[in-house]
């Protein structure tokens, strides 16, 4: 599996955990998953329940994590 595919899978897992309202979606966990951007981290952490905002931030995150081709 390529790094890009692995990053996509990781983001899908974050989406699933978000939908399941996992309390493990905390700052420490997200940083450990190398979701690096502070702004995006903050957005994810501060929009619980706002699905549209979450999906939008997730798309940014996907772009950020995708290795340059």
């Amino acid at each position, binding site marked *: 599996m390529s790094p890009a*595919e692995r990053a996509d899978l990781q983001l899908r897992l974050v989406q699933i955990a978000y939908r399941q309202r*996992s309390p493990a979606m905390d700052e420490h966990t997200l940083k450990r998953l190398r979701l690096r951007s502070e702004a995006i981290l903050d957005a994810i952490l501060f929009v619980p329940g706002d699905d549209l905002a979450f999906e939008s931030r997730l798309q940014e995150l996907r772009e950020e994590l995708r290795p340059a081709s």
Partner: protein
Amino acid sequence: MARVTVINDSSEFLELMRDLLTSLHHEMTGFVAVEASIDEVVDSKPELLVVDLRLQDRPQEISGWEIIILARSHRQLLNVPIILCTADVWELKKRTSDLEQVAGVHVRTKPFDLNEMCHLIQRLLGQETTERSERGGQ
């Protein structure tokens, strides 16, 4: 190649695990629910079980915790390693002391680190060297 059985009420999670396990060249059987006899789990002949702690409770179906207990008392599943994946941290805390009594259960909360999960899967299946050599070969 090894056989891995994943039990999770989220079809989305099953799809994700199928992609992950396929990339590791393993064969996955997925169940969104399991009945108390766990015959279908036994029939899938798993070398590794990945179980969600909280499953939807319909009367004839059982929880992930019950699956673990039944697996550990079943002749054919007794020694099969189990990865317990859950987003339900509160239920997990309630089960901590119970889980400590059950051998071979590895707990990961969602969202877990996929790289670490891959290493854990390969280690439990005794295929860590294969994974490392494949990654080194990329």
